[in-house]
């Protein structure tokens, strides 16, 4: 039987951290932990990209280093530009031990975002609506749809801000969009569903992001998100035009990006281009 999964040992200095960072998720490229920032009263997210023993050590170091620096650069640039993403708090791209025998991994400490991911918000809302929509009157139904429309519009606006700043996300799904819980006392929404759509839209996971101002790359972000919403949130899909609307109003370049998106039949060459990388990882992982 499979052994219980044990995550790889944490890199220094987090092997000192008490209490130990808590493993949250494990992706294709790294592990995500919850820990403290440099201030013990403030939480932080820690992304660790361990070295991959199946890669040649020099190549491994170079790839790991390049990717974590790219992610941190995109995030820092976006913070400077006022786009809501987690801020970079600390970073180590060099690994430890210095030579081939050392640990070739890297880590990135980021601001902790307190709130749900939009995937969960939409899932909960859709589940409630599926069960109870028939009990709502026309006005209530309208109001519920309006809340989700407004959320999608805010998301479109935030993505517009991202693109305006010259960064494309590369993996936009509703799992990579969060709602930061409001810190100030604001009046809670009254909704029969019990699902709040309040909070600032925050984009997360820039592991596949890059700096680009090309309509093609920007359109891929929108296309990937559109497909993600279509496949996971069928009841919200008809409101996609709201997202497009929010995006269009966000910056001047939006029109040509949206035109590129509409011209779609020409394959969006880069959609899922990162899949190559993931596939390659799978192939390389297979022992020969």
């Amino acid at each position: 039987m499979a052994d219980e999964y044990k995550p790889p040992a944490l890199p220094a200095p987090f092997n000192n951290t008490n209490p130990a960072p808590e493993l949250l998720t494990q992706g294709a490229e790294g592990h995500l932990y919850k820990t403290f920032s440099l201030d013990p009263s403030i939480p932080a997210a820690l992304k660790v990209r361990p070295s991959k023993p199946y890669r040649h050590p020099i190549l491994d170091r170079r790839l790991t280093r390049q990717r974590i620096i790219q992610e941190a650069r995109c995030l820092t640039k976006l913070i400077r530009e006022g786009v809501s993403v987690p801020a970079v708090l600390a970073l180590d791209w060099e690994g430890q031990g210095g030579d081939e025998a050392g640990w070739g991994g890297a880590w990135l400490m980021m601001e902790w975002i307190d709130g749900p991911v939009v995937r969960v918000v939409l899932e909960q809302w859709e589940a409630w609506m599926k069960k109870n929509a028939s009990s709502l009157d026309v006005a209530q139904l309208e109001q519920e749809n309006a809340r989700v429309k407004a959320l999608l519009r805010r998301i479109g606006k935030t993505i517009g801000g991202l693109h305006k700043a010259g960064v494309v996300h590369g993996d936009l799904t509703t799992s990579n969009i969060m709602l930061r819980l409001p810190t100030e006392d604001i009046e809670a929404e009254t909704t029969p569903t019990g699902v709040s759509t309040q909070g600032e839209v925050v984009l997360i996971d820039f592991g596949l992001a890059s700096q680009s101002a090309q309509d093609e790359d920007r359109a891929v972000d929108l296309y990937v998100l559109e497909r993600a919403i279509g496949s996971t949130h069928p009841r919200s899909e008809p409101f996609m035009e709201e997202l497009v609307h929010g995006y269009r109003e966000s910056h001047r370049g939006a029109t040509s990006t949206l035109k590129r998106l509409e011209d779609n039949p020409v394959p969006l060459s880069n959609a899922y281009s990162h899949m190559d990388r993931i596939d390659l990882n799978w192939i390389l992982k297979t022992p020969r």
Partner: protein
Amino acid sequence: MASYLETLDIPHLPESLSVYVALYRDVQNAAFLRQQLLSGNKEFEYAFIDASMVFSRAHATAAIFRAINDYKNDRLKSHNVHSEIVFSLNPANNIADSFRKFGVADSTKDLLAVKVSVSPEITRDSVAAHLEASVQGTPVTFDDQTISEISDVTRIKKMFKLGALPSPGDKTGGTQNTNAKRQLEMSLVGAIALRGS
């Protein structure tokens, strides 16, 4: 002993490495302190930072952590962990330049002193006693309120090429002010984390 010396609680550092910080205003003997650094007086192995170049606690802490992490991994670019803290504050890669811009100068009036206990003889008491005997100035609490009265935000922004960002302390006030502070602070912290990349 003197209670103004703060032991900075940075998670993730081993307990054996304590970080002591003290903030002084109206320093009278900055030239003397700088001279001790220049002559390499071992007694004066501190990070002596011109506090007007510090934006907030988080800003200073980011530089301290960066330097200590590089120290732990044997990749200091400068002499020791203390000079590395000053170097870490500098967005550019020139060591001498970082001392000119961020380190104590003859004209320094407000001083942030940082000491890392890199050997067991360095204790809170020894640091407090030595600083008290060496720095002629008024010790004040190292908090964001006090630092905000000292920082030269325009100059800091210029150094980090962040001139386009809104400045906290503008008349706007309220939430906008908090957002401006946060945005600038996080931009500085990110720049320190990425330095040399």
